[in-house]
């Protein structure tokens, strides 16, 4: 059983890690603590529903459409909601992301109705049986895709000029401006990336469960994941996500599904009190 829980936790945790990574990218770029990350993930599930079921696009085309739509969504959000508040204190910025999540959720429920929708993507759905461990192919694919995305993401940041400029802007807005960087564009780019990562996670979670706004709660687990890992740390977000996935599986498996949240939020609280900068964060940078 333990191995089963650990493996499932690892797979789901990889998805959370992906969503959390998107969250961290947005946070690092603009210091925006995005409470809408959960609903952005839900948008992914519904985008997949529209692309595959409603439009009937072939899967590879659907993937491209979903990613393009996600990038556009991120850019529009940054332009409409975040840019007008740039330079404002913490609370208004947090609140506008909450307002954003209320708006998106309402829009989704108006457009698609409140009934959950099953996804019909061509992701594999079989089961691998290794000894007495059952591993769903979907979970496995999710984990693999998440890791590939993370790899692509790292390569982007490490080796491309846009990635370098993003890291520079995250480091110091003012110095970036003084280097001729258009930080608005960079921030919009960060939102595009953050949204894409959330949306990819949403496609998988929507396929594993159903496309429904209830998934938002799972997406919100990105928050504790990021903080446990270290707000300023990209690897921290991923490790935090995996940790949250594993804890979730163990807590729901051995205790009860209701206990899930406590077993994630109690470690968060302890972490906040003992090591607010997180597992991987930097002590000085972590002071918020």
């Amino acid at each position, binding site marked *: 059983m333990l191995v089963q829980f650990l493996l499932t936790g690892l797979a789901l945790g990889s998805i959370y890690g992906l969503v959390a990574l998107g969250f961290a990218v947005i946070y690092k770029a603009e210091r925006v603590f995005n409470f809408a990350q959960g609903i952005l993930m839900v948008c992914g599930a519904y985008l997949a529903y529209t692309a595959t079921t409603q439009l009937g696009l072939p899967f590879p085309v659907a993937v491209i459409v979903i990613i393009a739509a996600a990038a556009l969504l991120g850019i529009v959000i940054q332009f409409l909601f975040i840019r007008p*508040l740039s330079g404002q204190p*913490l609370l208004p910025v947090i609140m506008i992301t909450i307002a954003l999540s*209320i*708006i998106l959720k*309402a829009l989704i429920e108006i457009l698609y109705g409140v009934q959950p929708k099953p996804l019909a993507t061509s992701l594999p759905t079989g089961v691998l049986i290794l000894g007495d461990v059952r591993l769903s192919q979907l979970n496995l694919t999710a984990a693999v895709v998440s890791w590939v995305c993370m790899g692509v993401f790292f390569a982007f940041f490490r080796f491309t000029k846009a990635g370098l400029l993003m890291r520079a802007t995250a480091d110091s807005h003012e110095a970036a401006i003084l280097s001729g960087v258009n930080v608005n564009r960079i921030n919009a780019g960060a939102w595009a990336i953050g949204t894409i990562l959330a949306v990819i996670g949403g496609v998988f979670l929507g396929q594993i469960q159903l496309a429904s706004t209830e998934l938002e709660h799972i997406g919100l687990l990105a*928050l504790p994941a990021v903080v446990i890992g270290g707000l300023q740390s990209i690897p921290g977000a991923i490790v935090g996500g995996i940790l949250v996935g594993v804890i979730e599986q163990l807590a729901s498996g051995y205790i009860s599904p209701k206990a899930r949240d406590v077993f994630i939020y109690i470690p968060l609280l302890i972490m*906040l009190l003992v090591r607010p900068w997180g597992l991987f964060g930097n002590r000085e940078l972590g002071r918020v």
Partner: protein
Amino acid sequence: MTSVSTSRTAMPIDEFAPSAPARQKAAARPLRWLWLAVAAAVLVYLPFVLHDRAILGYRLSNIQLLNVGLAQLNLTLIAVLGAVSLNYLTGCAGLVSIGHAAFFAVGAMAAAATGAQLGLPFLVSLVAALIAGAAAGVLAGLPSLRVRGLYFVLSTMALHFIVVFAFSEYQYAAFDVFGISYPQPAIGPFALDSALKWYFFLLPIVVLCCLACNYSLKHREGRALLAVRDNEQAASSSGIDVRVLRLKAFAFSSAIASLAGALQAYYLTTVSTELYSLNLAISFIAMIIIGGMGSIAGGVVGALVWLLLPSVLTGFAGELGAAGGGLAKIFVEHRPQVVNLIFGSLVAVLLIFAPGGIVGAARKLTKLVRPGAEA
């Protein structure tokens, strides 16, 4: 984006001489009493209007009453307690809390243990809720001694989930899946068995709590809190023990929220764990943003808008429904979603264009119309 302070500037802490506007206010006092009397008369007469659906014997249609009922007004009064206490904390002390729904849950639990399980009188269980709320508030405020800003927000969110879990364990252990049922509340021989009686029970509590918050803000401690909010270093170096003050503010605010939670539980007669969702906590933050952060009036206005606007909209959509606009149809089919859409957009628009909320915008307007006048 790391500091929590709003745009108000620091008030000098140890300066007690009445300022020029204060003297002006004294001159305007008779007028102020008149306004107060009118407001009191309206507050006392309003429930009868809503109850009889008539004003001075003249019958009003539902839409003339904005589709608002007395029960809604009572729930609004309870929400005012929540919003005002959160505004006291968030707007005035610079502490952001996503855990306000948790204090409602604490109050409901305290009332359940004392009122429903032990069978103690209603008022006793309210006092128990107050005490439990204050204690929980101190606990919830403890992280503020170590972490600030965003991390503190997150610690309140963690507390929310922990309390909600405790509530559901308690509910399932001591009651059943349907929730906790509360006995008929009564004060001595008088049973609170109608919306009208509830209204006259709640109204003085709400007024009292607002006055208490206002008093605390205007006097020594409140001023010190404002100083803490605006500049912690300055406040610490002027000899104020920031930490104790902050914990006190937390205890005070959560005691009121907990009281509100107990009242809400009694009023609804049955509550279950689903009520205390993160959405409830968020709705309180939304209320103070809509009303305006940093003032008691902001909390009141925000709660009014949040609780009454939906039914007002429903009323108008119902009126329009006959005329059959497509919009009205969408509204009827997706009422909660459209309401949320409107609220979400309202919050966003206010944050961008009027960070002071409705109250702040109104103050600006009165200043424009009557320069020199303090709203």
